[in-house]
């Protein structure tokens, strides 16, 4: 008996390990595919990090010397192979536009991006779930109006435009909040955390409000279904107060779709953050990628793409973990 139990445990662990390995393998293959694709595109495109080929202010000799120094004179396959070898050692190369290791530049940008996306994600879910639940409980209230019309309208507007409107209204006309960047020039000392929060407020809000639309809508749907379910009816029949039916009985049952949504919506949120970062001059990955592209800085662009893929992967894994935790059924029969 005991032996069979151990076996099941091992079997389950083995299956889980196999699944993780299979996923990791598939992911590595896809990543390699994308790296090759981007590298080929960089090759095929006109111009280079050294500047346009017909720039008269740069002599041919200087150009050749510069290209040799940057390693751009080697054939493309050789450079790609070298890039991959470096990647295996954790070396992402040197940024052409900043003359610094790509890993260091990315490291500086990762923190601000995580701060912005993380707080926006948390805010979007808190707001979406609160509004969705409230809207189901009170179909004619303000929350219901927000879920049905207000948030979808914000979600239909382009994120960068919302950013501009927010800057115009809250930073310039009303003067409540700073319009850009992450800190004030004099933003150190005891007031630094407050300074950071003030700078965070606008980009975070612009990112969170549209993302809350889908969450709120699903939560609203799920709550209405949960409140109409036999379980809720039974609870009411047993004399459980409505408030408790809503928050205790229906809420837990309704939370599941929102958590699945977390994983699905993450790439969009991270992408939206990239655009919002540019609007607010937020020193994150999005701003970095945009400037790397404008400067034709291939190592930096490749590195940030890689980091974005890692973020999406990590986010997806985290969402799956949360969903499994919230719903015991998922633990029994893992979806492929």
């Amino acid at each position: 008996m005991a032996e069979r139990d151990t076996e099941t445990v091992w079997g389950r662990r083995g299956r889980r390990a196999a699944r993780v390995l299979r996923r990791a393998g598939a992911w590595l293959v896809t990543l390699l595919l994308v790296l090759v694709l981007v590298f080929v595109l960089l090759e095929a495109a006109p111009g280079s990090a050294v500047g346009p080929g017909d720039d008269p202010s740069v002599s041919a000799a200087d150009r050749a010397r510069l290209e040799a120094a940057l390693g751009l004179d080697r054939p493309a396959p050789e450079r790609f192979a070298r890039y991959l070898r470096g990647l295996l050692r954790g070396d992402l190369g040197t940024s052409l536009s900043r003359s610094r290791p790509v890993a260091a530049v990315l490291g500086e940008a990762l923190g601000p991006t995580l701060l912005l996306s993380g707080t926006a994600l948390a805010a979007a879910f808190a707001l979406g779930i609160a509004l969705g639940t409230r809207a189901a409980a009170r179909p004619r209230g303000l929350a219901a109006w927000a879920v049905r019309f207000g948030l979808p309208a914000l979600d239909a507007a382009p994120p960068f435009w919302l950013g501009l409107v927010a800057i115009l209204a809250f930073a310039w006309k009303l003067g409540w909040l700073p319009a850009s960047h992450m800190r004030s020039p004099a933003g150190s000392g005891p007031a630094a955390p407050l300074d950071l929060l003030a700078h965070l407020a606008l980009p975070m809000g612009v990112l969170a409000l549209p993302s809350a639309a889908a969450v709120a809508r699903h939560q609203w749907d799920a709550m209405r279904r949960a409140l109409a379910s036999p379980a809720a009816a039974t609870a009411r029949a047993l004399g459980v107060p409505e408030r408790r039916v809503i928050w205790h009985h229906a809420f837990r049952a309704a939370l599941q779709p929102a958590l699945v949504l977390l994983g699905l919506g993450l790439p969009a949120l991270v992408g939206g953050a990239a655009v919002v970062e540019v609007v607010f001059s937020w020193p994150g990955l999005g701003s970095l990628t945009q400037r790397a592209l404008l400067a034709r800085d291939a190592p930096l662009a490749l590195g940030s793409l890689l980091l974005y893929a890692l973020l999406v992967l990590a986010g997806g894994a985290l969402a799956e973990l949360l969903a499994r935790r919230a719903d015991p059924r998922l633990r029994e029969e893992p979806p492929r």
Partner: protein
Amino acid sequence: MRHTAPLALSAAVLTAGLLGPLLAPADPLASASPAALRLLPPGSRVPALVGSDGALLPLDARGPGSAWRLDGDEIIARLRGGAERRVPLAALARDAAGAPRLTTLRFPLGTDGFGRDLLSRIAAGARVSLAIGLAGILGAALLALAIGLAAGLAGGLVDALLSRAGDAVLSFPRIVLVMVLAAWLAPSAGVLAALLALTGWPALARLVRADARVAARSGLLAAARAAGAGPLRRALVHALPAVLPTLIVAAALRAGSYLLVEASLSFLGFGVPPPHPSWGNIIADGREVLLEAWWVSTLPGLALAAAVLAANYLGDRARAALEPTVRATSPPPR
């Protein structure tokens, strides 16, 4: 019945967008001095003298007295921007009585930083933005159809390869991937539509593949095979009807997000190159004058939001019509 009005409205918004340039007033300022007409607020009217060659001389109607007076056979005109200019009467268009003809330039939505009529720009941009978005979603749907059917019906190695390729695309935030690709491709409207299609198909192909797999296991396809139908015939005649409704609904629900990606791309500097207007690059242009002229960025953004809402609404109705078992709810996350 209760959906008729919003349905008609949504369709009207999108149609008006596509027909935009035909409905909007022609940009009257091709030959006028644009610097004098920079950043006029919405609703501005500017009197102007008309040259005999059709050129326009915008006058400064503010301040005391008339903006122009006769002096011999010349006209002394107070132009917008402050300068006074003497213009020979012969160089002006005149009415039957011989008096110089005056016209009024109307700018219902104001002008941009180059003195261009914003309404005309938004109308012209509508066609560019909507055409790119529509071509993008159509291309993505067709790719998804071909790839999803192939993967779902063939199975095995073909399925694995195609699914991996789709996952590769899906493992990046879409806007970042499109941005990287567009940065190296010297974007034009066609290239942008192609990029939207190339980054958009995996999400749709997953749905097609799932439906095709169900169809492949059904007796219908086995019967078709037994009756001698080849793989192409099985895919196009027998499997296609099974996967089409889901695909149409999913594509319709995503169309709005394609418009947003296109606009964001323009804003980041990798979209339709100026001077061609798209909603995205009009908004981006307005960023530089945001403090002096709120309307340049704000109004095209409203047009874009209206178009996206209309597209989302039509997608919702398509879902209600084609998938009666599923109640119409929100669009899927992008």
